Each structure stands twice: as C-alpha cells, then as structure tokens.
C-alpha cells in the first residue's frame, strides 16, 4: 500500500512515503480495534464460538473423518462474515454519517489510504476466525476416534469468506454511501449463500458461492472427494483481494500499484473460478470406480483375533473398534460359530461423489461382513447386526431374505452386549420404535423384524445376559437353522412366544 499515491517516489520523498505507509498501519490498528469491539462482530463471535463448542462436542458421533471435519468448519464463518460486512461498512461510513469527512479531507492521510486501512483492519478478524477454525478442527482431530486427513484449503475457506465479506462491506460503503445498503446486501447474501436456494445449481456456478457444502453422511477417502478446494481458496482469496483493491481504487488512489493489484487479483479470482469449475477428472472418476467395484485392490488388511479386517488406508486405525464389536458378538455364539473366520470389508459407493448417499448391495461371499466409512452412534448397532446376521445366516446376501426365528437370535446377538440394549434396539430400527414390525438398518440392505420377533427380542433383552447366553450356546444349531420359527426360538430361550406366526409380507 506504500505507493498508493506516487508510483515512483524520488529519493527525497521516500521517507514521506514510508511515513504514509506507517500512518496506514496505525490507522488500520485503530480501526481493527473498533471493528473487533463493534456490537455485531462481538455478537457474531459469541454465537460462533458457542456454536463450535455445542456442535463439536457431539459432531460425527465422536468418530470424525477429518476430510469431512475440515468442511464442517465453513458454515460458522458465514455468520461472522455477515457481521463483519455490516461493521466494516458502518466504519467506512462513520465519517460521512457524523460529518467529519470535511475535516478529515484536509488531513495528511488521503481517502484512498484511509480505505486501505479499513481493508487492513479486517485482518485481525480474519485471523481470529482462522483461530476459531483451527480450534474447531484441532478439537476434531484430537478426538480418539478421528481418522483421515484434513485439507488446509478447505480450512482456509472460512477465514477467506470473512475477508471477502468484509472487503465487500468496505467497497459498498465507497460505492453506495448510505447505511441501508449493507443490511440489504446482507439479506441477499443470506438468501443466496446461506439458504442456498435458487441459483448456483450447475457444477460450475455452484462453486462461485463462498461456501459449498455437501450434504452427506458417508465419508469418502480423501483422494476420492474431488472437491477443488485449493482452486476455490484461490478464487476466494483473489476475489477478496480484488474487491479490496477496487475499494481503494474507487476511493481515489489511482496509483499504478492499485491498478496492478486490481488486475492481478482479478486474474487470480478468474483463474480459480475457471479451474474449480472443471468438474471431476477422468483419473478421479476411474479411482472412484475402482474403490467402489474392486475395493480389495485399494485396501489394507489386518488380522485381529482370527478375523481379517480390510479397510481403506485412512481407516486402518478404526479396525480395532470393528474387531471389538466382532469379538463381542462372536463370544455370545455357539461353539460352531466361535472359530468362524470373518472377513470384514469396508465398502463404499464413491461413483457419485461425496454428496451422494447410495445403497451398497449385500456381499454374497460367505463370512464376509460389510462396514461403512462412518462410525459411532447408530453405526455401531447397525454393524453389530450385520456381524450377527452373517454369523447366523452365513452371508449378508443370505441374511437379507431371512424371515424366521433366526431374526430373534440375530438381534439378540447384535444388541445384548451393548450398554443399553433396548435403546440400541430403538436406534437400529428405522422408525425408532421398540414394538411392532419395523425395518432394521445395517451397512448394506436392511432387515425386517415382525411384531412377534420384536416382542420376543425385547423380552430377551430384559433378561440377564448370562442366562440367555447359556441357552443360545446350548441350542445354537437349532437357533440358526433356517426352518426355526419365532415361537420355537422363544420356547428354546425360555420367554413368552409371539402373538402371531411369522409373516414378512
């Protein structure tokens, strides 16, 4: 900013130019203090930090994939950005609103440099936002269940959005010096960027918004996400700086540095905007295809207690949690199933990108269990159910059509070892009920429970674990026979039978 006025100061004026630059910094420091203590910004940071605390305590059920956690830091800064837009706008308008423009016009620091100071005054807020983003992400990364890799470019999006919004506030004050302009623009931003309603639907234009979220519950390996995050960060930085330079330019500083700054940053923004709109590369599409169709070629396998766990490299640490579930379920089975070697394979459908939530077909291979990429919360009883179903029916494909008494055994194996089995039953069922017929979720196709099976399972879960476990072991062969009815299972396990016969219509 030092050469705002004179592009090539002669030696005699160099000291004066340096003095001018120092004045801009001193003014920026003053304005930064005012901005940080303005009511909208304080309120926004209180809400933002509160939101981080409230959200991160329970986000991702304690098992974040960091390549998703980085994106989840982007929504909060929008709020801060709006507040900064308002406050920076009012700060620039201050001297006009209170009639000091005339006095200040004859002071040494000219208008262009004052605008430059207003832009520089945004940096502490941006840094504070970056601090909050880093804090939120570090918190996720420090969770014991965290896996994967975050992307620095995704983390930059939030702070850069704040910079962009603040610069827009400054520019707006110079273009349209009325105090109602900024609130009205905020409503438009709210509508377009936050509510994200009508526009930005094409793949190219979608990325013009500062924050592009992907609603998805299934994390992908970081190299398959395919978000142009770095280009987007370049686009945001270019746009923010371009708006900032424009604000200085329209304030009367027509120096070469400013014009060059506008041109250069515009070029950056356009480069970013074009590059981010490129869509998925053929290599990425091929990689997604491979990970979906032939995951075994991409995965790392580990042996744990006689079973084999194959995961995408980033998920290898999580095989320990899967093994715990497998061991707990297997310990409740009869001796025939005790030594069964399971293959737990992680499977995803990455072909439609990170926003898609596609169903995964059940594995047909005997003793293979599918596990997804998310973990924690309901994903645990769902996986547990899949393990139990494979141990009882032989394979996922076989368990899919199961409509007999074996369902009771499956559900009992899946739930009885958990902390609160009845609650786990509620969570694993689609309609969150503990009575009546319902769909039971699993990593692949769901299973169904009839009303009678539900009643029997509930009665079993209310019994002491050891007593039922002994009976299960004793009658294992009959309990896992495809011909067993629910009534017979109830009888074997010593609880009241179902009101109706099995029927899975």
């Amino acid at each position, binding site marked *: 900013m030092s050469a705002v006025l004179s592009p090539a100061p002669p030696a005699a004026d160099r000291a004066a130019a340096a003095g001018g630059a120092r004045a801009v910094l001193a003014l920026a420091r003053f304005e930064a203090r005012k901005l940080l203590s303005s009511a909208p910004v304080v309120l926004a940071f209180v809400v933002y930090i509160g939101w981080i605390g409230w959200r991160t305590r329970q986000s991702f059920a304690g098992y974040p994939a960091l390549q998703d956690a980085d994106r989840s830091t982007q929504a909060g800064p929008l709020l801060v950005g709006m507040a900064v837009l308002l406050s920076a706008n009012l700060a620039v308008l201050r001297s006009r609103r209170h009639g000091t423009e005339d006095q200040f016009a004859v002071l040494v620091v000219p208008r262009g440099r004052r605008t430059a100071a207003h832009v520089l005054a945004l940096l502490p807020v941006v840094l504070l936002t970056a601090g909050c983003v880093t804090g939120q992400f570090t918190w996720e990364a420090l969770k014991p269940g965290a896996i994967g890799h975050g992307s620095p470019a995704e983390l930059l999006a939030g702070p850069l959005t704040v910079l962009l919004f603040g610069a827009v506030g400054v520019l707006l004050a110079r273009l349209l010096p009325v105090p109602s302009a900024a*609130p*009205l623009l905020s*409503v438009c931003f709210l509508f377009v960027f936050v509510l994200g309603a*009508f526009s930005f639907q094409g793949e190219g234009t979608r990325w013009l918004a500062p924050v592009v979220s992907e609603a998805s519950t299934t994390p992908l390996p970081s190299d398959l996400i395919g978000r142009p995050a770095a280009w987007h960060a370049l686009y945001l930085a270019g746009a923010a700086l371009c708006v900032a330079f424009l604000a200085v330019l329209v304030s009367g500083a027509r120096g070469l540095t400013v014009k060059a700054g506008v041109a250069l940053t515009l070029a950056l923004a356009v480069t970013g905007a074009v590059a981010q709109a490129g869509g998925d590369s053929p290599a990425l599409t091929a990689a997604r295809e491979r990970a979906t169709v032939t995951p075994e070629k991409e995965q790392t396998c580990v042996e744990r207690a006689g079973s084999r766990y194959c995961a995408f490299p980033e998920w290898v640490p999580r095989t320990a949690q899967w093994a715990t579930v497998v061991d707990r379920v297997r310990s409740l089975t009869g001796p025939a199933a005790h030594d069964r070697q399971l293959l737990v394979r992680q499977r995803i459908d990455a072909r439609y990108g990170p926003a898609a939530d596609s169903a995964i077909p059940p594995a047909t291979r005997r003793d293979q269990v599918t596990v997804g990429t998310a973990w924690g919360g309901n994903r645990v009883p769902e996986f547990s159910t899949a393990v139990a179903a494979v141990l009882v029916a032989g394979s996922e494909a076989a368990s899919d059509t199961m409509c007999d008494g074996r369902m009771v055994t499956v559900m009992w194996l899946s739930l009885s070892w958990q902390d609160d089995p009845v609650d786990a039953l509620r969570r694993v069922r689609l309609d969150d009920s503990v009575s009546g017929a319902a769909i039971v979720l699993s990593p692949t196709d769901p299973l169904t429970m009839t009303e009678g099976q539900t009643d029997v399972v509930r009665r079993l879960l209310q019994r002491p674990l050891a007593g039922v476990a002994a009976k299960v072991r004793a009658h294992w062969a009959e309990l896992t026979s495809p011909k067993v009815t629910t009534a017979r299972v109830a009888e074997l396990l010593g609880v009241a039978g179902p009101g109706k016969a099995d029927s899975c219509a």
Partner: protein
Amino acid sequence: MRVTWASLLPVLRTLPWPTLTAAGGVGLLLAAVPRLADGTAAAGPALDLLRCVALTGGLGLAFLLDDPARHTTAAVPVRRLARQALRAALVAPPVALWWAAAVLLVPAEIRPPVGDVTLEAAAVGLLALAGAAAGVRLTDRPRPGPGVAAGLLAAAVLAPLLLPERWALFVPADDDRWAAAHDRWALLLAAAVAAWGLYGRERLGRRR
C-alpha cells in the same frame, strides 16, 4: 386532526424515500428470482424467499423514523406517537402494494400460504417500527435507523439458530408446527404493536 392533515405533505417529503425505495427494489428483485432463474423451483426455497423479502421490507422500515430534524420537532404539540403513526400510515399503502407484488411474483404453484406469510411479514415490519420507536425513545440520536436495522438483521439470522423448539417461528410450510408457529407470529405482531405504543410515547418527568 386538522394538524395531522396539514402536516401530511411535509411529512411525506421528509420520509426516507431513497432508503425505502432501495429496500423495496431489492425485495422485488429477490422475489423475482424464481421467475428469472430457469428450471424448477421448490416450495421450500419460495418460503425462504418471501421471508427474505419481508426482511428487506423490515430493514427499510427500520429507517422510517429517522428524522434529521428530530431535535427541532421534538417540542411541537402534536404527540410523538401521532407523528410516528402518520409516517407509518403514509407508507402503509405503498408497502401493501409492494408486498402484494412480491407475493404475486412468486409463481403460484410454489407460493406458500399467503395469509400466514403475510402475517410473518407484518410482524417483521411492526417489529422494525417498534425497534425504531425504541431507538428514538431510548437514545438521543436523530437517526437510529442503522442500529435498528443491524438489530433486526441479527434477530433474523440468530432466531432460527437459537430459538428453542417450543418457540420455533421459522418452520417449513408442510410442517405440523405451522399453525402453532403462526399463533406465535400473531403474538409477536401484537407484542410489536404494544411495544411501539409504549416506546412511541414521550418521556414525562416523574410526578411527585
């Protein structure tokens, strides 16, 4: 009453027309988005859209009581509430027309229930006016508008985030809570009117 009629024209000229026009223009521009954007639009966004339009209207109204001559007119015999009500009455017909235009701009097949959304808009507008009246009463500034607008905007952004489930106001149109939420909106409208009545009165010295 005669005084009110006589002051009609002068007041008409002192209203912050540029701000009101700008707010109205932005609102209509927003309302026109579904017609401008090609492709199919959904009903959910249309509701958000009309809420944003109502918010622009509210932001415009937040500046309605800004009066640079406030300290000069403070001592006239016409009561402050009457002066404020006159200002509101003068903008009411154009605002009503504007809202009707905004609602009509949203295609009929995705338009949310008009009566209920109008209730929301009216509550937002009255809240803005009550805020402006509070700004006049509680501060000595001739132009409390920017602060009121910032407050209204903050409320609009934070209310959907922070309101507990029991007091939810911003519910989708197909939600079970729609009717209950609009009872709350009506309550909010009444509260705004009451607050305006309260803050529109001038402070009297305490009597012994």
